[in-house]
């Protein structure tokens, strides 16, 4: 009788532990982190900082959050990015290798039903510190074709999107004031999502995106929850 009860107790505890471990496994997929180099100078927000980028190593946006079945090769979709910061702004250089670049000049009636997120685009997400101490999401989307030459957005963000035959490059300087973040005090959480749109040559037909790359191990909806964002580790400024 006692032995049977012991076995039952062991079974129940094991069951509970397994359930707990399973639930924890779902949550403990790890938040990626990226070290961001400090730019030792005063960044002019004109995106003209090419020499500085050469000293920075790049990271690869390796997680396919949607549509891995549609990636044919690294020529089809591959993204690398670099980051730098100073007291004024966060700068990113995102390079997307894509053998078929969809570049509408604008999203208008010619592309009726086309969603912005279904284009070839780079979308940045940041967790902005809100006045009550919580976090809200800041989203910046840069669409091939629509966003092209260097420009200034309403909030002081500067960017340049250059399209070559088989790749496009986005250079962006995002003022910390836009994110309401003090880089020397506040943690910075972000996500980068890159979308590939290859099926665009059918007359009068608009196709959805094929593939989405992201930083987290979650789905392309990961941007909805700042819990899934990656953490930026801002390296300390050289004195």
């Amino acid at each position, binding site marked *: 009788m006692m032995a049977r009860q012991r076995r039952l107790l062991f079974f*129940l505890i094991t069951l509970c532990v397994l*359930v707990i471990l399973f639930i924890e*496994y779902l949550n403990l997929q790890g938040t990626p982190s990226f070290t961001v180099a400090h730019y030792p100078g005063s960044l002019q927000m004109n995106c003209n900082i090419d020499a500085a980028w050469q000293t920075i190593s790049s990271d690869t946006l390796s997680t396919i959050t949607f549509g891995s079945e549609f990636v044919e090769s690294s020529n089809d979709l591959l993204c690398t990015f670099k980051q730098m910061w100073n007291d004024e702004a966060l700068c990113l250089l995102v390079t997307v290798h894509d053998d078929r670049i969809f570049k509408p000049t604008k999203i208008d009636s010619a592309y009726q039903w086309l969603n912005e997120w279904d284009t070839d685009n780079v979308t940045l997400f940041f967790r902005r510190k809100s006045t009550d101490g919580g976090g809200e999401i800041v989203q910046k989307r840069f669409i091939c074709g629509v966003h092209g030459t260097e420009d200034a957005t309403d909030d002081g963000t500067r960017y340049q999107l250059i399209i070559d035959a088989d790749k496009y490059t986005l250079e962006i300087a995002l003022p910390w004031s836009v994110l309401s973040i003090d880089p020397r005090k506040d943690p910075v959480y972000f996500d980068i999502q890159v979308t590939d749109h290859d099926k665009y040559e059918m007359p*009068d*037909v608009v196709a959805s995106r094929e593939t989405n790359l992201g930083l987290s191990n979650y*789905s392309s909806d990961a941007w909805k929850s700042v819990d899934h964002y990656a953490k930026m580790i801002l390296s300390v400024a050289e004195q």
Partner: protein
Amino acid sequence: MKIRKKYLVIFALISIIFTLEIFFRTFTFEQLKVNAYPMIYEFDSLNYYRYKPNSTGLISKPSIQKTVVINNEGYYGPAFSKEKLAGKFRIIVVGTSNAGGIWLHGSKSFPIVLQEIFNRHSQNVEVITCAIDGINRNWETIKAIRSKIVQYAPDLILLEGNFPLNFDHRTRECYRGYLMEYSTDSRQTRQYCIDRIDALNTTLKPLTWLYDISYTMRAACKYVIDRPESFQGEYVEYARIYREKNVASAMLYYTLSHKREMKEIADLNLALTEQAIKLIFLNYHEPVFEDELRALSIPTITLDIPEADSLAHEHDAHFNASAHQLIAERLYLKLESFIPNKIKQL
């Protein structure tokens, strides 16, 4: 004393588990029941998938439990003859799930009720359902009218007003008790579905066994699946697949521009008119592109069915039996002007 403590722990654990099981089985029995998807789909070279003629399948999901019988022509509904009987006025209802009534708990979809009303009024009208369920199939439906449905020689086609006209090259295939939905745009998508089902049938079998016997496990899975903003990842996907008995790969979907969709509809109407077939667009709730369709000489019927909870299943958004009854009654009145007098006077 030590032994009494052990007994207490065992008793407490068993009590908690039993209480949870009793609670979930009493209050969430319907939401947590084991799902079944009907194994009635097969590849179709023209419309990507269709129902297997003369097949049967079981639907089991919250709010819906029934056996589905597919007729001789590969549609959910009463069997019918390809050849129209002389003197009969043949109406074919074309659309997706609501038109077909496959996701209705019960068998009295609105085309069947409409047939009963015509019969009650001794009118020589035959109502046939040619609907295939699925999302992003509005363009496939138009294609099916041209390629298949005209062969049944209808006098009138009632087409659900589903816009925009879209498609996604999605096929459906049944595999080891699951429904696979994958894109024919990529050869890898089918393998994606097979790999997941195989994993559920081998390495994940102990978890699926636990799911089957324990309502507590089912409740935990439901909690996780229903909160995608908090819980994501491969195992959540497995839980969803096992619960729904359905695995879908990534899908590309396409949408015709409005200019193109109107041109396609105009061309379809022209082709149907040449064969003396009347095309009518059917809207359950509000008119859609009514003026533009009128300009193409295509009438629309709008039934003003309220979007009320009482007209949908409790745990499923498809129309319930009350909604189908209401649609049939309103449709009968609206169709009056389209039925020839000689048919009505029989």
